[in-house]
């Protein structure tokens, strides 16, 4: 039985969650596009940022929206230093070995989180009220997450379009050798992109802490969704990645209501395979 009211509610929920999934995938897209490596620790970084927001909230009562600039700064520092420390070596490895490196990092991070904060489900009960618009309920926290996601995405986009480093990053995505030959310091661009990418990833983690409960192992799910979004939207294409994330949110919401919530990972997987087959002709 089709109920338009429920359908509309499902669309709104999908859009609200999708925006967060989209921004969560942008960092993965950027690192993959610029450095050519797949950051398997992406999900663990997202959850680490969610726990940072949790600490600020439980210790000082600071809502995630205020913590997010701090998280961006921490993320940038972590990314920049990670590249300066071992990044050059990791980028030179063959793809399967660099995947394994990031998997090691992911194990280290998610188990450190587990040891520090324990296995319990955490959440941030801030602004749990909802708005009601013509029969559709909009949770305030998710609405705020949507607005801050849009603002931060526009900031990132301007950064990449207008500033010198933004242009240098796009040049490296387009053609690494060409960029180096016109005098761009590719190594430095790598370090800064890694910083920006983890900055935005940490931002998305604070947004996730606002909209969903999380555990130390929640990162795996976000990693899969981010992969699907990046592949669907295009590696290194941040607008495409954001839109693909919104699409994933809509699909998850529809599947959750019309089938069952528990099969949504299988749906993400099927979308991923279809997209890779059709769009990349086998990833060549």
């Amino acid at each position, binding site marked *: 039985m089709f109920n338009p009211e429920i359908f509309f509610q499902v669309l709104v929920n999908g859009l609200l969650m999708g925006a967060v999934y989209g921004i969560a995938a942008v960092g993965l897209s950027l690192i993959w596009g610029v450095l050519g490596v797949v950051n398997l620790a992406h999900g663990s970084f997202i959850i680490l940022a969610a726990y940072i927001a949790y600490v600020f909230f439980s210790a000082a009562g600071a809502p995630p929206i205020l913590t997010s600039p701090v998280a961006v700064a921490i993320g940038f520092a972590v990314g920049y230093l990670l590249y300066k420390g071992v990044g050059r070596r990791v980028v030179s490895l063959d793809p399967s070995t660099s995947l394994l490196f990031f998997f*090691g990092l*992911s*194990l280290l991070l998610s188990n450190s989180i587990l040891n520090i904060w324990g296995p319990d489900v955490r959440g941030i009960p801030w602004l749990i009220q909802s708005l009601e618009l013509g029969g559709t309920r909009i949770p305030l926290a998710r609405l705020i997450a949507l607005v801050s996601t849009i603002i931060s995405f526009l900031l990132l986009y301007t950064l990449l379009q207008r500033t010198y480093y933004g242009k240098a990053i796009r040049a490296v995505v387009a053609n690494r050798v060409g960029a180096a030959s016109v005098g761009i310091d590719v190594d430095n661009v790598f370090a800064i992109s890694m910083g920006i990418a983890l900055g935005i990833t940490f931002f998305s983690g604070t947004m996730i802490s606002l909209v969903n409960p999380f555990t130390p192992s929640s990162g795996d799910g976000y990693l899969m969704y981010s992969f*699907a979004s990046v592949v669907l939207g295009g590696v290194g294409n941040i607008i495409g990645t954001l839109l693909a994330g919104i699409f994933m949110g809509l699909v998850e919401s529809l599947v959750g209501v019309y089938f069952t919530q528990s099969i949504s990972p299988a749906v993400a*997987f099927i979308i991923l395979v279809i997209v890779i087959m059709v769009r990349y002709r086998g990833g060549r």
Partner: protein
Amino acid sequence: MEAGKQRLKIGLILYVLLLSIAALPPLTGNTALIAYFWSFLQMLALVMSLNFITGFTGYVNFGHIAYYGIGAYTVAYLTTMTRVDPYVFIPAAAITSAALAYLIGRPILRIRGPYFAITTLGLGEAVRVIIVNIPAFNYSEGLPIAAYFTYNVISSYIAMYTTVATLFILTLYLRRTRFGYMLESIREDEDAAESMGVNTAKAKLAAYVLSSACAGVIGGLTAITHVYAHPGFFSITLNVSVLASLLMGGGGTLLGPLVGAGLFFFISDALLIRFPYLHLVIFGAVVMAVTLALPRGLSHLIYRYPKISGKIADA
């Protein structure tokens, strides 16, 4: 003697040593010792079976446990249905895993590089959620089989031992035959291999089906030993441990899986005892360090120190 042959020789010696030592525990009758060695043989078997696809062709496979779990469920389901001795269904586990690997492998093996790795990362999870939504498989509770046969630790040990011995022969076969060389040419340069007349699509599908069928057998044997098939079989941590062991040891070689699985098993065991909470943190750091220091795996050290390994091989 050139380094590659030395490595093969060291590998042969170590496997013969291992298979002789591993024959001892059942004679002692010490159940704890048998169980400990069984776990090691199981890990080694998984690494050796993954070697066929990831080691030889270079296709990084995060979905190996999908077939391991399918094998476990095949054996457990058929046992609960027919109430016959579960060992009868090990061939069925191999056939089911092989058939599904054929169907799934045909589309996904067209995908290359990191895209393939990520696709397979979703595969295990996708199979798991499908299984826990099927009523016949008892949802997320799984299928216990203890009531249908008399469990015997010795026979489960012998079964895993035989599997390792079979995988050893299969690996030797791949190291020496045209089929193995075809797979290695795919790893080195797939387009070049294709243009030289290698039917790459057929060869990698064959390797994938072989590798998955072996995983199905190991899964089936594990279900018998644990007297239980459950969604925990689809463990991404197990898959990555197997993958990490293979890459640490060195893929596409005979020696690599043994070195990698041995190192992984004994290190993670020692860490687990000493640091029950932090062992995965330390293990993550070890994986990072190994990939940075020895990106081609430990067994590649032979190329770096040919003299020392020459002496080992001659001794």
